[in-house]
C-alpha cells in the first residue's frame, strides 16, 4: 500500500509535469507580455511579432460568466459582442481588417477572471471587452493596466473599474451616476414624497447605487422612510422589508436590484395588497421576461435603463431581430452594452487609424487618444462620449412599463 502510494504520487507528478509541459509548449509561439521581469521593449517586440505572425486581424477578447449564477449576463455579453463582430466582418471589417473574437468564462470569480484574461493574452488578444461584472472587472483592470492593454467594459459599473486605470473605459453608467440620476429624477418630477429602498447589501452594484441614492436624496424634496437590505443568501422572502415600507407609508419603493428579485418583490407586494409605485435602475430590465411572472404586476414600474428591447427606433429593432434570429433569445441590456462596446472599439480604431501590426501598448495609446475625440450613437445612448477617466457621458433614459411594454418617458 505504502509502495503503491509512492508509485502513484510519482505517476501523478509525471502527469502534472506533462500537463504543464503541454500547456507551455503550445503557447511558446504566443507572446508573453506579462513577464514583469523582462524589459518593456522585449515585451512589445514580442507582441509585435505575434500580431505579425497572425496575419492582419484585430484580436478582440471578451470575459464574462457563462457558467454559474450570473451566467445570464455573461452569455448576453458573449452573444452581443459576437453579433457585432459578425456584422462588422460581414461588412468588410474595420478599415478592411477583419476581427477575430474569443470569449472566456470567469464564473463570476475574481481569480478565475484573471485566469481568463491570461488565457486571452496567450491567445494574442489586443483589445478586451470585459469583464462583465464589476468585481471581476476591477481585478482584471489592474492586470490590463500593467500590460497597458485597451479595455472597455460593457457592464462593469463600479467606479473602481475605471479609477486609477486610464486604459479602461465603460459603456454603462457608473453606479454613483445611476443612484444620483434616480434620486434627481424622483425629486425633479415629484414622483413621491416618501420613499422606501430595498437593496442587496451583498451585491456591489446594488449597494453602490443605494449609497449614492441616499446621499443625493438629502438634496431632494423627498424623504427616505425605510431602507432595508437583503443578501444573496436570503433573497426569496421579502415580506419583512415590504411590511416595513408599507407601515412607514412609503408611496414609492426604490429597487436598485436585479430583475429576478424584483419580480418576487412585486408578486409579494401584490399578495399583501400593497401597491406603491416601484422605481428601479437598469438591473430591472428583463423583468417582463421572467418565467411564471404575471407581467400585469409590473404595470407602472418605472426604471432608468439605457436600453429596452421593445424600443421603436430602427437600430434597436434591427439589433433585436438579428439577436433573436441568431441566439433564440430576447437581448437584454448587457447584450446591447457589449454590442455597443464593439462598435465603440471600431469607431476608436477608425479614428486613430490603428493597425493590428502595432504592439498592444502602442495600440492602447492610440485608442486612448481616439476615445477622447469620438462620439458614438449606440443602442444604449446617443452621442456617447468619454472623459479621460473612462466614464461615459450619455443621457439616462427613463422608461415606464405600460400595457406590458417598456415605453420611454419624455
Amino acid at each position: 500500500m505504502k509502495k503503491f502510494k509512492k508509485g502513484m504520487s510519482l505517476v501523478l507528478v509525471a502527469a502534472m509535469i506533462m500537463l504543464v509541459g503541454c500547456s507551455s509548449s503550445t503557447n511558446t509561439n504566443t507572446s508573453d507580455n506579462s513577464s514583469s521581469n523582462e524589459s518593456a521593449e522585449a515585451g512589445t517586440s514580442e507582441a509585435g511579432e505575434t500580431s505579425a505572425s497572425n496575419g492582419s486581424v484585430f484580436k478582440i477578447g471578451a470575459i464574462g460568466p457563462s457558467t454559474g449564477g450570473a451566467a445570464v449576463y455573461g452569455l448576453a455579453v458573449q452573444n452581443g459582442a459576437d453579433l457585432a463582430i459578425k456584422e462588422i466582418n460581414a461588412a468588410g471589417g474595420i478599415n478592411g481588417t477583419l476581427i477575430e473574437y474569443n470569449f472566456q468564462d470567469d464564473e463570476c470569480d475574481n481569480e478565475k477572471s484573471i485566469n481568463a484574461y491570461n488565457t486571452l493574452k496567450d491567445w494574442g488578444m489586443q483589445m478586451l471587452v470585459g469583464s462583465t461584472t464589476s468585481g471581476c472587472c476591477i481585478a482584471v483592470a489592474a492586470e490590463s493596466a500593467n500590460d497597458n492593454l485597451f479595455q472597455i467594459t460593457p457592464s462593469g459599473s463600479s467606479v473602481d473599474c475605471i479609477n486609477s486605470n486610464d486604459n479602461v473605459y465603460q459603456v454603462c453608467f457608473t453606479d454613483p451616476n445611476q443612484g444620483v440620476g434616480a434620486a434627481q429624477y424622483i425629486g425633479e418630477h415629484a414622483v413621491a414624497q416618501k420613499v422606501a429602498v430595498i437593496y442587496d447589501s451583498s451585491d456591489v452594484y446594488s449597494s453602490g447605487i443605494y449609497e449614492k441614492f441616499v446621499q443625493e436624496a438629502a438634496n431632494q424634496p423627498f424623504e427616505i422612510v425605510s431602507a432595508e437590505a437583503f443578501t444573496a443568501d436570503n433573497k426569496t422572502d421579502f415580506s419583512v422589508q415590504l411590511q416595513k415600507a408599507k407601515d412607514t407609508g412609503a408611496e414609492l419603493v426604490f429597487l436598485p436590484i436585479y430583475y429576478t428579485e424584483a419580480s418576487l418583490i412585486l408578486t409579494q407586494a401584490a399578495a399583501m395588497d400593497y401597491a406603491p409605485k416601484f422605481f428601479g435602475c437598469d438591473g430591472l430590465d428583463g423583468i417582463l421576461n421572467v418565467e411564471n411572472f404575471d407581467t400585469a404586476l409590473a404595470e407602472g414600474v418605472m426604471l432608468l435603463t439605457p436600453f429596452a428591447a421593445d424600443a421603436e427606433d430602427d437600430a434597436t429593432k434591427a439589433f433585436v431581430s438579428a439577436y433573436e434570429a441568431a441566439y433564440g433569445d430576447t437581448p437584454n441590456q448587457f447584450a446591447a452594452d457589449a454590442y455597443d462596446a464593439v462598435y465603440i472599439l471600431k469607431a476608436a480604431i477608425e479614428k486613430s487609424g490603428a493597425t493590428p501590426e502595432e504592439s498592444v501598448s502602442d495600440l492602447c495609446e492610440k485608442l486612448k487618444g481616439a476615445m477622447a475625440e469620438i462620439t458614438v450613437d449606440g443602442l444604449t445612448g446617443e452621442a456617447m462620449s468619454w472623459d479621460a477617466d473612462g466614464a461615459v457621458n450619455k443621457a439616462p433614459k427613463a422608461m415606464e412599463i405600460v400595457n406590458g411594454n417598456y415605453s420611454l418617458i419624455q
Partner: protein
Amino acid sequence: MKKMKINKKTKDNIITYGIVLVAYIVMELLINTGHISSLMQGLLVPLCVYVILAVSLNLTVGILGELSLGHAGFMCVGAFTGAFFSKCTQNAIPADLLRFILAIIIGAIAAGIVGFLIGMPVLRLRGDYLAIVTLAFGEIIKNIINVLYVGKDSDGFHFSLKDSLSLGLKEDGEVIINGAQGITGTPKDSTFTIGIILIVLTLIIVLNLIHSRDGRAIMSIRDNLIAAESIGINITKYKLMAFSVSAALAGMAGVLYAHNLNSLMATPKNFGYNMSIMILVFVVLGGIGNIRGSIISAVILTLLPELLRGLSNYRMLIYSVILIVMMLFNWSPKLINLREKYSFKRLFKKTREVQ
C-alpha cells in the same frame, strides 16, 4: 557494509520538500527562459495558496481526525486582516517586502486567534456535529465581513455595520472595507517565490508537528479518544493546538490570496462553503493524513479546469467526471487491488526474481 541509515520518515519528508523545490526550480527556469504561458504564470500564486490550504486542512482532518468544513472562513479572516493592514500602511511602510511579511504574520495570527476562539466551543463536538458547526462558523465569518464597513480619516478608524455613509468620514477619509464590495486596491505583493517559501514554511510546521511528541499525542486522540484520555493526554489542549495551527496556516494562505488580487470580496464562491468543500476534496483525493498527496491533488485540481478551457462551457462537466474517476481510481478497494497487481514496483520485482 556500513550505510548511513536514514529514518524512513525523514526520507519521506525529504521527498516532499524535494517535490516542492524541484517544482520551484523548474517553474523558475521556465519563467526566466520565457517558455511559459501567461495563464500558467498567473496560476502560480493561486497554486501556492491552494497547496498551503490543503496541507493545513490535512492537519485538522488527517492528523487530528476531525472533519472541518469551515476552512475557507479562516482563509477569509487572514485575507481581510492582511489586506486591511497593507491598505492602511501602504504609505507608512514603503518597503513592499517588509509590509507583506508583516501582513502575513498579522493575517496568520488573526486567523489563529479566530481558530482558537471558535475551536473552544466547537471541539467539544465530534464527527458530523463538528462538521456542521464548523460549516456554520465559516458562513458566519463570511457574512460578518460582508456587512462590515471600516473607514479611516484623520480622526482614526470608524466602524459600521450598516453602510459606508454611517461611518461619518471626513473629507480626507477613505473607506477601507466597504461591506460586500470588500477591499479594493490591495498592493500586488504576492510572488511565486514568496508563495513557495510559505509552502515550505507550512510543510516544516506541519511535518515537524506531526513527528513531534505533541503530534503523536494529537494522533492518539484521533485513533482512540478514550485510550488517549486514560493515559493522561490533555485532549482539549492538543485538539485546540492542531485546530488553531491549521487555522493560522489557512490565514497565511488567505493573505497570499488577497495580495494577488486587486479587489478582494467575500463571495460565496471564494470564501463560502464551496471553497471549504473544495479544500476538503484536495485533502480527500490526496489521501487523508498524506501531506504529499494533498500538495499533488491541490495542484492537479486547480490546474485542471484551466487546462480544460478549450472545452468552453463543458469543462466544468468534464472536470466533475474526471474528479469522480480520479476518486474511484485512487480509493476504490477493488481498484487498489487491481493496481497493486499491476504496479510498476511489482513488475520490477518480478523481473528481478526471474533473473
